[in-house]
């Protein structure tokens, strides 16, 4: 594609090392995020960086970008220049032509392609004004180089997802500031952090083709992905990180998906669920979802028994959060039904769902569940305010007593019950919000990443609470990216991929390797389970 434009004059030197990382360590209070990690990326190759949550991938990338300082002692070399790792700055990284494209692409959807390409850079001017002719000519050249057949005046939100990602990459590697654009042709080290995570399979294929082409033009490409299939499809070399250590680096040729899965997961399975549960089969269903549909979600049917905990596994964008929002009435239902204890739940109304006994704990505490500036008591009573109504309005003492009882029951650590939510640690905040829903005595508890950003102690407490709620007869659905959590709590685990349930196993048959395989291979469209 690029060859057709006839402007490709890159230095091609297969032996050139684009990036060398030596003895890189990073210590956070209490944890060692990176431990003497080594990494070498050749120019002209796609180098995949693989590892589970907490493996140190993100820390490594943040250090390379100069955003997070490394511990002293390491060395980072890009191109010809090298530096002690702790002295890396964003300016140096940029000067060495290191470029980053994050999952959030940083494009402004309402602006045009050309405007996005020049975002934050100097526009070419004539007589003091912006020369739009030259802006569009330059944008045209960049688009042609990337094989993007788009008008430069197109609004970015009208682009396909893969096109947006390629546009972001094009912007990253292109020095628009250079007057003649000559430096734009110099190869760079490109770091792509989960660029395919939100793309459907066909779009991902297009992006992978673009990555291969960039490598062919002499760029070094570091590629982070959870889709092991993609990695095997597209990377030349792969490096596996585990628990902050460099596990191995090897060519992808000859590696099978199963092998790679084992390498990435490679951890013993977890402890048992904190409280033994009676067999769910012996109980009547509390929640019945029948042919439930919404935008981006295939028809979904699911029965959840009293005391049963159902785990929902799947990557971001698999529809797992959407499903919870749909059941709790926060997302538009296009078809199907939800019954709680045999009674139909009115769609599209959170309050109606709450009255039927549905409680939804969103993942995003800061914006979707916590009232950070409000006192704990008001956070706790937010879903049950009506219970504190008396003949002369709200009974504040009653509300307060109920709140304090909840704080005690969940052992929430707070400076005082008059504190506002923001003053608490993440774990205690999450307990407060969980307590808010416990106060509604839910029949169906929907939990989205219940222990995200929560410390280990609070995580255990929260797991206990969830198990206790189930023990008292509630039906529970847990969405989690944390494989341990799913295996620890769930009676049954469903795998969701792009709106479809692709697999289901009871706890006895579920294993870490089975889940990991799904997490990492879930990138091909499959038929719906229903």
């Amino acid at each position, binding site marked *: 594609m690029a060859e057709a434009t006839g402007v490709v004059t890159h230095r091609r030197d297969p032996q050139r090392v684009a990036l060398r990382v030596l003895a890189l360590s990073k210590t956070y209070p209490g944890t060692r995020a990176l431990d003497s990690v080594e990494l070498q990326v050749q120019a002209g190759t796609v180098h995949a960086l693989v590892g589970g949550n907490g493996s140190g991938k993100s820390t490594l990338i943040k250090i390379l970008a100069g955003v997070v300082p490394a511990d002293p002692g390491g060395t980072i070399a890009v191109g010809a220049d090298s530096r002690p790792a702790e002295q890396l700055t964003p300016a140096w990284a940029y000067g060495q032509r290191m470029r980053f494209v994050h999952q959030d692409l940083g494009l402004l959807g309402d602006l045009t392609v050309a405007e996005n390409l020049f975002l934050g850079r100097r526009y070419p001017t004539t007589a003091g004004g912006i020369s739009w002719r030259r802006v569009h000519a330059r944008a045209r050249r960049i688009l042609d180089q990337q094989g993007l057949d788009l008008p430069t005046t197109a609004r970015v939100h009208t682009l396909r997802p893969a096109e947006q990602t390629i546009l972001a990459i094009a912007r990253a590697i292109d020095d628009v500031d250079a007057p003649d654009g000559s430096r734009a042709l110099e190869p760079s080290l490109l770091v792509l952090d989960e660029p395919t995570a939100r793309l459907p399979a066909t779009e991902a294929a297009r992006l992978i083709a673009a990555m291969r082409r960039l490598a062919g033009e002499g760029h070094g490409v570091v590629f982070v992905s959870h889709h092991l299939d993609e990695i095997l499809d597209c990377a030349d070399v792969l490096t596996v990180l585990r628990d902050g250590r460099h596990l191995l680096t090897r060519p992808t040729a000859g590696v099978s998906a199963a092998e790679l899965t084992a390498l990435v997961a490679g951890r013993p399975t977890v402890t048992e669920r904190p409280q033994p549960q009676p067999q769910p089969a012996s109980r009547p269903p509390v929640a019945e979802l029948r042919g439930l549909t919404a935008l981006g979600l295939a028809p979904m049917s699911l029965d959840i028994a009293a005391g049963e905990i159902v785990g929902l596994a799947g990557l971001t964008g698999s529809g797992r959060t959407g499903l919870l929002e749909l059941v*709790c009435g*926060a997302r538009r239902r296009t078809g199907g039904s939800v019954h709680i204890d045999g009674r139909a739940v009115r769609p599209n109304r*959170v*309050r109606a*769902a*709450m009255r039927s006994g549905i409680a*939804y704990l*969103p993942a995003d505490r800061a*914006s*979707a*569940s*916590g*009232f*950070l*500036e*409000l006192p704990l008591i*008001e956070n706790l009573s*937010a*879903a049950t*305010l*009506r219970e504190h*109504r008396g003949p*002369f*309005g*709200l009974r*504040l003492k009653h509300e307060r007593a109920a709140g*304090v009882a909840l*704080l*005690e029951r969940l*052992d*929430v*650590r*707070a*400076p*005082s*019950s*008059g*504190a506002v939510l*923001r*003053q608490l640690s993440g774990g205690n905040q999450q307990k407060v919000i969980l307590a*808010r829903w416990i106060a509604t005595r839910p029949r169906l508890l929907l939990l989205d990443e219940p222990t995200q950003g929560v410390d280990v102690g609070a995580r255990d407490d929260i797991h*206990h609470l969830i198990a*206790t709620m189930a023990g008292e007869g509630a039906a529970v659905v847990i969405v989690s990216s944390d494989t341990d959590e799913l295996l620890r709590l769930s009676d049954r685990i469903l795998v969701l991929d792009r709106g479809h349930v692709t697999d289901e196993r009871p706890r006895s048959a579920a294993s870490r390797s089975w889940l990991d395989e799904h997490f990492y291979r879930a990138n091909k469209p499959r038929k719906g389970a229903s």
Partner: protein
Amino acid sequence: MSDTSTGAESVAATARGATAERHRRTARALSRGELGERYGLVALLVAVTLVFAVSPETSANFLSASNIRTLLGNQAVTAILALAAIVPLVAGEFDVSIGATLGLSSMVAAKLMTEQGLPPVAAAAAATAVGATVGAVVGIIVGYLRVSSFVISLGMATLLGGVVTWYAKGLTVVGIPQPVLDFGNRNTLGVPRPVWLLVLTVLLLAYLLRYTIFGRTLLAIGVSRRAAELVGINSNIRIALAFLVSGTLAGAAGVVQLARTGSASAQVGPGFTLAALAAAFLGATAITPGRFNVLGTLVGVVFVGVTVNGLTLMGAADWVEPVFNGTAVIAAVSLSAIVARRKARLAA
């Protein structure tokens, strides 16, 4: 949680007891910084009052009963309007149309009383209803279309300004019936009657914000609309209702203004908006800092009123009031931002 009690659990139970003890002790013991935040504006008000009370230019008149009555009577209108402003502000929305609504309402009441010969009570009710309607229109647009309340209410304010000018035909309406003027200017139990209406409004609003589900939902929406919706709050209608309340109160304030001055003209309304907002923002820095609150707003109104009154007695010209109001808004908002940032840092 469990029936069996192990050693570890009893240790946990003891720790839990200690936490509970902490929870029981309410946050009555305030640090010096918190005290300063809470009562800083009150202290400033006292200081300003003292200065005017002793300084030679003003001491003769400032603390006289008649000056205080005039001051309070005049400020009652601003105070009702400031209370109107805090209802949408609590929910995170601006209503900058309150001044214009006040102007429209006072003009409607004046015309109905004089030209149509309606009994004063009926005219007052009709004018208040007009205010309520304006509030409802702004509220429905802002709440259901989720557009910027600042822009919509600013547009409404401009629109109403034009409507009032057209309706008044450029004239000042006078000849207001005596009972109405009596309400505006006589005292009951030594206190100007508009102040009694203010007291009623204060009680109603304090109850509304603290003891009703509606008030608490507005507060929740103001902190996070998304989180409020996910606990089952219909934020669209609540926001619409908040504007309905502010419009109604602004309408009532217009009637009081008419009773107080005995005339209505197209020039009456606009100047009130910023005075009311200044008091509301000053109020958010006092009593319960960071929150718009009824008592703080009252302190804000009195503070602005006393200062402007004192400066006027010292011989300052008309320009003092807008300069002071503008300064108060800028200072209050900047100050609360600084305080909020410091708090966030302390919490982190």
